[in-house]
């Protein structure tokens, strides 16, 4: 009986202890929370450097897919948790801005960002440019036969060998599909050719992966050979995780996604959030991001010779696909719904 009571006391003691621990974890600094899909490596680096520059601010972050950030910021609007939204294709930011989820802010470097890479009402600013590229398993696909351009993906060689992120969840895939359809409209005046192209791609696609990690695993271990993905993530995969992947920059041109940053509407730490946005766009931080994390700066004032070699090369190789942004903003949602209902897995 006594033992039982002692055990009960120990249990409740442990419970209280855990709760107390959970409740207090502060040290007097202001904490700001960043929602971002950029990944631990880049986020940790930016946070550490920011805290060094602003010693009374503590940065915490939550890493999640870009679509999920939008969903979360929307769901939490009555009680905003994030102070800063750092990273996602700009059309997601445009949608959030339209719904009143973002606050305007003019960073000191605003003038150095070209007009198509920021919101006209300054609710978001581009930080990086992300090219969409073709990735392939470099152990199983020799460079000589690797696909070099979009149309190569339709070759019979890749039938059922392609794995893609599910475009419903992936901003990148939406961007590519949108570009294919917009290209078709620009060339022929209608989306018909674009739909036909996407149908053929669907026939060659073995799987639409919900989870990026599933895609990495399957690509790395040869379950599928080819994918469409963004350049920084593929490069990270190869350099850090040693998964055997290489990428090819499509020769006919590729969507260059503007990756943006914004202050979340309703944050209790407006000044700190603005400092963070300001800090991410400074030349020093853009160079760190370029050198160590393979991000191409959106600012156009950085001297070419200050940038790492691969960016200079990529800048030469990448031909940005001219995309009718207005058309995309109007049509992308309905296009994706049509794709989901009528093209995916044979429709």
């Amino acid at each position: 009986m006594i033992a039982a009571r002692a055990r009960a006391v120990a249990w409740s003691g442990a419970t209280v202890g855990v709760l107390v621990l959970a409740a207090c974890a502060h040290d007097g600094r202001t904490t700001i929370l960043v929602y971002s899909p950029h990944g631990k490596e880049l986020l940790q680096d930016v946070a550490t450097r920011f805290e060094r520059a602003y010693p009374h601010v503590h940065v915490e972050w939550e890493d999640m897919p870009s679509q999920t950030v939008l969903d979360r910021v929307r769901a939490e609007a009555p009680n905003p948790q994030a102070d800063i939204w750092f990273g996602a294709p700009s059309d997601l930011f445009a949608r959030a801005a339209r719904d009143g989820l973002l606050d305007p802010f003019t960073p000191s470097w605003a003038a150095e960002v070209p007009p198509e890479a920021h919101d006209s009402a300054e609710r978001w600013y581009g930080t990086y440019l992300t090219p969409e590229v073709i990735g392939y398993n470099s152990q199983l696909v020799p460079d000589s036969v690797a696909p070099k351009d979009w149309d190569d993906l339709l070759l019979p060689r890749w039938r059922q060998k392609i794995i893609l992120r599910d475009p419903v969840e992936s901003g990148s895939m939406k961007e590519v599909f949108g570009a294919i359809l917009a290209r078709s409209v620009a060339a022929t005046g209608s989306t018909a050719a674009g739909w036909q192209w996407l149908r053929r791609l669907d026939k060659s696609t073995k799987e639409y992966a919900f989870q990026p990690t599933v895609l990495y695993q399957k690509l790395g271990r040869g379950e599928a050979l080819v994918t469409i993905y963004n350049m920084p993530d593929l490069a990270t995969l190869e350099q850090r995780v040693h998964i055997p992947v290489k990428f090819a920059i499509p020769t006919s041109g590729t969507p260059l996604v503007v990756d943006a940053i914004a202050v979340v509407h309703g944050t209790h730490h407006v000044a700190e959030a603005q400092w963070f946005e300001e800090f991410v766009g400074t030349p020093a931080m853009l160079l760190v991001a370029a050198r160590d994390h393979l991000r191409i700066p959106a600012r156009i004032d950085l001297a070419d010779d200050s940038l790492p070699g691969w960016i200079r090369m990529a800048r030469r190789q990448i031909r940005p696909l001219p995309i009718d942004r207005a058309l995309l903003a109007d049509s992308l949602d309905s296009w994706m719904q049509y794709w989901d209902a009528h093209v995916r897995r044979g429709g």
Partner: protein
Amino acid sequence: MAPAPARRLAVSTRLAAWALILVLLWSVAYPNAAVVAGSFAHGLGYWRAFIESPADREALWTSVWISVVSVVAACAIGVPLAFLLARREFPGRRALRAVATLPAALPPLVGVVAFIFLYGESGVITRAVQAVLHRETPPWSLSGAWAIIFVHAYTLYVYVFLFISAGLENYDSALDEAAAGLGAGRVRRLVRITLPLLMPALAAAMLLVFMASLGSFTAPYIFGGGLRVLATQIVTTRLNGAVGVSYVETTVLALSAVVALVLFRWLERRRQYVLPSKGGGRPARRRFRSPALRLAVAPLAAAIVLVLVLPHLMVILVAFARDGAWTTQILPPVYTLDNFRRLATDPAFLSPVRNSVAMTLLATTANVIVCTAVAILIVLRRFAGRGLLAALAALPWAVPATAIAIGLASTFNRTDLPTARILLIGTFWILPLAYFIRGVPLVTSAVESSLRQMDASLEDAARGLGANAWLVLRRVILPAARPGLVAGATLAAITAVGEFVASVVLYTHANRPISIDILAQMRDFAFGSAAAESTLLIAIVFLFTLAARERARA
């Protein structure tokens, strides 16, 4: 079911009963009602969009047929295994019995990941089979409907096994012996006597499997390969910004579950037999008569044990494998302690563990208090709201976790006292509340079943001897409730500590649980760290089980 004694309620008890009904109405029924109301926010507009969408129709149909096949598959494994372990004696029986319920202790996300490593196209088993058969291509692909059913069968057969085992435990062999004496053959006895007697247990287990498959999110999310089921379609629709239609999908998912509930309950009632217990007792375990069978059964048992343990082993193995080194080989080629070292040196690592354990303790404590009170009222008291209380306590069975989460998210998104809304979104408290709701039917039904075995006259005797209500509760009722309470609370705690489906919708930075951290590790390319953290989660589940065993014995 023994009729409850018609005890008149003291005013305080009646107040307590209505307080409990209010608590459950608010936490369990209200959010779901809000979702249903939300689906009609545009009249029938959202419903029309749902009916006209081929994707949604496909999702509904796929959800239903996958669930039906999952039930069949789970029964095909669970029933023979229960019979084998209850009726036969063979070498390896104890080992098999010990691991038979292991799949239930595998947290959802972890289990699915283990399956990829084992049976995925580049998994250990797949590659081994491929090598043995000298095939160019993998012998199968773990993708689509059959992959989902395979995972369901593995994780959900445990329900069938447990229920049938319990049924066989209480099985009175007198009827069997009588039938044998009258000349009925073995098959005839099985079909005419044993199976009908086990029907209620089987129906209850089938219901659980059906519900779990219908609401299953992780398996279709990871292996679906683009296959549409309702549980994932809800999330997809939300991500596409069509919140109204996602309410319709949530409502349809919950409705399908309720239809199944009614159907299975009917099946259960229709086939309920009350046997006068004549003490024939449980039939003794016999050895197999044929020598061939006797030889075959031990290796077979060993093989089943291995299959059951493999997912756990695989997670542990990957936790020691070096990330990225495992490409085309059958087994990971390089081993290291780095994954655990990285976890231990990460300053942020402790907080998800602390969060999950704290939220689990909170939710389970609330479950213990509320559900014990509810079960006592349902079993031992009679009052006007009893049926309502029982229905409310059972409701979360019928509502899949995704639907519960969406309900909470759309109800507790602002403080508005006239409509009983409190702002919980973005706070720590939303997840403990979700875990609590998921635990309500588990703990209540477990305590109920213990209390039903209590002799109701004990309470009267104690009162007659002058014990006050408090003493009766402490000395008579709670000891009787104890076995079910321990079992139910353990189950609730195990479910909560690895919970993924509701967490992924509701977590915030302040309460990020272990399962979400595992997902984040995976997103960060760190499969080894994800596996190391999963190993830790398995260890926590194991500790909970040990603690429960200790409590049950004390």
